[in-house]
């Protein structure tokens, strides 16, 4: 289909996609990471509700903060791809809409947190909200593609099937770079997450010291 690259660092020239294909290296791992972040945030929320240990709430916020950042990036990289491939930045494609809804959920999560003054109550209410929002996720994953046919690679309307990643249509070296990026972003996420959690723990301890004086 595409002329095979001669060296490992040469990006295969895909007619129709050309340089734009590079987006896939960023967009997909970022989107993947933001979903992981959301799932982690919700799970820590559930753990907080069970164990009432405020550390779980710190972990939940840390995941969510990174998730929010990643979600913004995912939406932006997605919109850039959309502009160059489909003509406009926004198309109401189901996946595009879904990532936007996730962005709104993250936003709502932080707005809720800022509206609750007390620590324990804030943790409880935001955990409950993540659960409620989390429960609607299957709906927009399965509902949306039904309601709208998609432009997104891998949607129902795509004749090429499930998209380049799942169908392994990518050239081997491109695949390697892609999976490298996937692993790289995941590792980056977990590293940033652990930094954030440690930062929040220290902040809280500092506040505890200043409070009791």
């Amino acid at each position, binding site marked *: 289909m595409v002329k095979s690259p001669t060296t490992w660092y040469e990006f295969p020239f895909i007619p129709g996609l050309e340089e734009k294909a590079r987006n896939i290296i960023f967009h997909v791992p970022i989107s993947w990471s933001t979903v992981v972040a959301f799932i982690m945030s919700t799970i820590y929320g559930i753990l907080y509700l069970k164990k009432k240990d405020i550390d779980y709430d710190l972990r939940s916020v840390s995941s969510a903060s990174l998730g929010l950042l990643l979600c913004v990036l995912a939406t932006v990289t997605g919109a850039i791809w959309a502009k160059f491939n489909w003509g406009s930045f926004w198309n109401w494609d189901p996946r595009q809409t879904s990532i936007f809804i996730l962005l709104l959920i993250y936003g*709502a999560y932080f*707005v809720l947190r800022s509206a609750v003054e007390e620590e324990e109550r804030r943790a409880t209410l935001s955990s*409950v909200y993540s659960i409620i929002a989390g429960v*609607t996720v299957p*709906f927009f994953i399965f*509902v949306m593609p039904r309601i709208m046919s998609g432009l997104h690679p891998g949607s129902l309307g795509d004749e090429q099937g499930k998209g380049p990643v799942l169908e392994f249509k990518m050239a081997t070296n491109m695949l390697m770079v892609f999976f490298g990026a996937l692993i790289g972003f995941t590792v980056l996420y977990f590293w940033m997450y652990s930094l954030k959690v440690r930062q929040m723990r220290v902040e809280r301890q500092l506040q505890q010291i200043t409070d009791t004086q």
Partner: protein
Amino acid sequence: MIAATAYHIFIKEFVSEFRTRYALNALLMFVVTTLSIILFSIGQESPSPDVLSGTLWIVIFFSAMSGLSRTFVAEEERGTSLTLRLLAHSSSVYIGKLIYNFILILVLSFIIAAAYLLFINEFSVKTYEIFWLTILLGSAGLASASTILAAIIAKANTKGTLFPVLAFPVLLPLLLTCINATKLATEGAFLTEALKEFQILLSFTIVMITTSMLVFDFVWKD
């Protein structure tokens, strides 16, 4: 016992609303105002039934945002939240308020839908069964999500604007499905063609109510 208590709580909400008429008046005015705005902006144009289906559910959504949080927020504001907390089982409180919210939004959406049918000529529904069933199931879905979210924001500090912010992402799949089903109704589709939509609306409602019942205690009990 829980069901009976839930019923009494529902009746209390109903009578209370009837006595004070705070929310009811404001809501009705809101509906009238929003409908007028839509009618004025349509003017001489002939918007497609698709666009009108969308605006129908926008109005219903905003009515829900205006009216469905009151049931919990008012208890907090008037200091009766503790009273109720020490009076009844939390499940009864949830169910009673859920039913109240459902009836409220059902009546509102019925009024809005009727107004659309009466005053907007371009909005012609061909399959009435789909249309009214969507209103019914859509109201159930709206009530199911709104009740638990209302309980959440009642415990927060800035209640008013918080409600739509939390509700919109959660309700979006529901709204899109309702709009789709309404479009089918205006196109004259057969009842069975909208089956998928009804399944989605029904399962959304059931999932919301089940999840709400599991988490309600965490919100209601401090």
